[in-house]
């Protein structure tokens, strides 16, 4: 059974056509389920618990990365273990609106692809990152410039303020074709990669044909695979984009929880 968690803003007339086409496809494939709208006063944790108690096993976030992030955090609060018989709660995404990094990584970049993914219900257990022992993230956490990284026995300082730090779980930079990073960015290996990137200013033809284009304009300079990283900053609070934007108190402890989450993946997944 499925539970669809629609973000509040999907009710806007701007998304009416997408929601209608989604409804039609779900009906055609016979995968209609419980429908919940995430209003401002909606208690998502309680709804997720209720759904799990009533036997629903697939939780579908209908919206963007922010919606998936909210549902992910509520889902992981429910006491369950992935793969355990009868207790396999899985997360899926139906993309509506912009900012669809999670949906693309799971092979659900468009609504028809996402519906096919739901019909197939092929699941994979993946690692999730945890920020300050509280917030979970699935893809990557992007930190602002002027931070440094603390590992167990050493620290990494950035020599340039223009460089940015990302802590990646999934191959969010879409670098599967690059031989240098084939071993990195595996969301099932129990480690994540702290990546230092630079965003070179590309103009004209360079903008279209540069190598960095496939990495979303970022040029990867350093990679540190680890399980626990502390991000240090001179500021008291840091704005981190970890699936969705979050304000966190510095220093930020980032830990990995191996194979904690079950996700529904499609044929074109990027895992």
């Amino acid at each position, binding site marked *: 059974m499925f539970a669809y968690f629609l973000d509040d803003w999907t009710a806007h007339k701007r998304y009416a056509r997408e929601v209608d086409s989604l409804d039609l496809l779900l009906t055609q494939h016979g995968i209609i389920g419980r429908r919940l709208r995430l209003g401002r006063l909606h208690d998502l944790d309680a709804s997720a618990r209720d759904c799990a108690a009533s036997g629903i096993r697939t939780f579908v976030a209908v919206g963007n990365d922010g919606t998936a992030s909210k549902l992910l955090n509520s889902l992981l609060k429910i006491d369950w273990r992935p793969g355990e018989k009868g207790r396999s709660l899985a997360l899926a995404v139906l993309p509506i609106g912009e900012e669809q990094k999670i949906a693309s990584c799971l092979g659900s970049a468009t609504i028809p692809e996402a519906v096919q993914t739901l019909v197939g219900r092929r699941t994979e257990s993946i690692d999730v990152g945890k920020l300050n022992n509280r917030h979970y993230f699935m893809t990557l956490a992007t930190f602002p410039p002027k931070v440094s990284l603390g*590992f167990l*026995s*050493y*620290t*990494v*300082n*950035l*020599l*340039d303020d223009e*460089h940015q730090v990302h802590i990646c779980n999934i191959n969010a930079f879409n670098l599967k074709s690059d*031989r*240098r990073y*084939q*071993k*990195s960015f595996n969301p099932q290996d129990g480690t994540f990669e702290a990546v*230092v990137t*630079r965003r070179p200013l590309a103009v004209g033809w360079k903008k279209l044909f540069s190598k960095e284009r496939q990495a979303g304009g970022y040029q*990867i*300079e*350093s*990679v*540190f*695979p680890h399980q626990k990283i502390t991000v240090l900053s001179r500021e008291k609070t840091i704005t981190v984009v970890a699936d969705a934007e979050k304000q966190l108190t510095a220093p930020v402890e980032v830990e990995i929880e191996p194979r904690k989450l079950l996700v529904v993946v499609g044929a074109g997944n990027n895992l």
Partner: protein
Amino acid sequence: MEDRENETIIGPSVKVEGDFTSDGNVLVQGLVNGSLRTKGNLKVEVGAKIKASVEATNAIIRGQIKGNIAIQESLEIGETAMVEGDIATKIISIAPGAVINGHCLVSPAERAGQDSAEPAAVQKPAGPRERP
């Protein structure tokens, strides 16, 4: 050692301070102060500056290292390399133009660093080499 095997990349824009340890292959292009140990292969690129004792299984050095180097298998020192410190390894190759200030122990029979034989002194001027 191929590029695709690199797991840790210390890029030109970062400085690592402390005891760096790794189980995989390491590529250094930036600055390292402290110590650098890896169970895999090490590649030090041109422009990299390491002020640390270095331990690895295999290594290719083309940058600057100030500190002792202990390599378990083979060590390749490129023409742009500058090493200030003692070297211990099983197999070594030194390209013309490389600068080494320190003792060099090459013992193929036993593991590098465990041989009791006296190290052979390798003395080279720090500046450019004189031509006859």
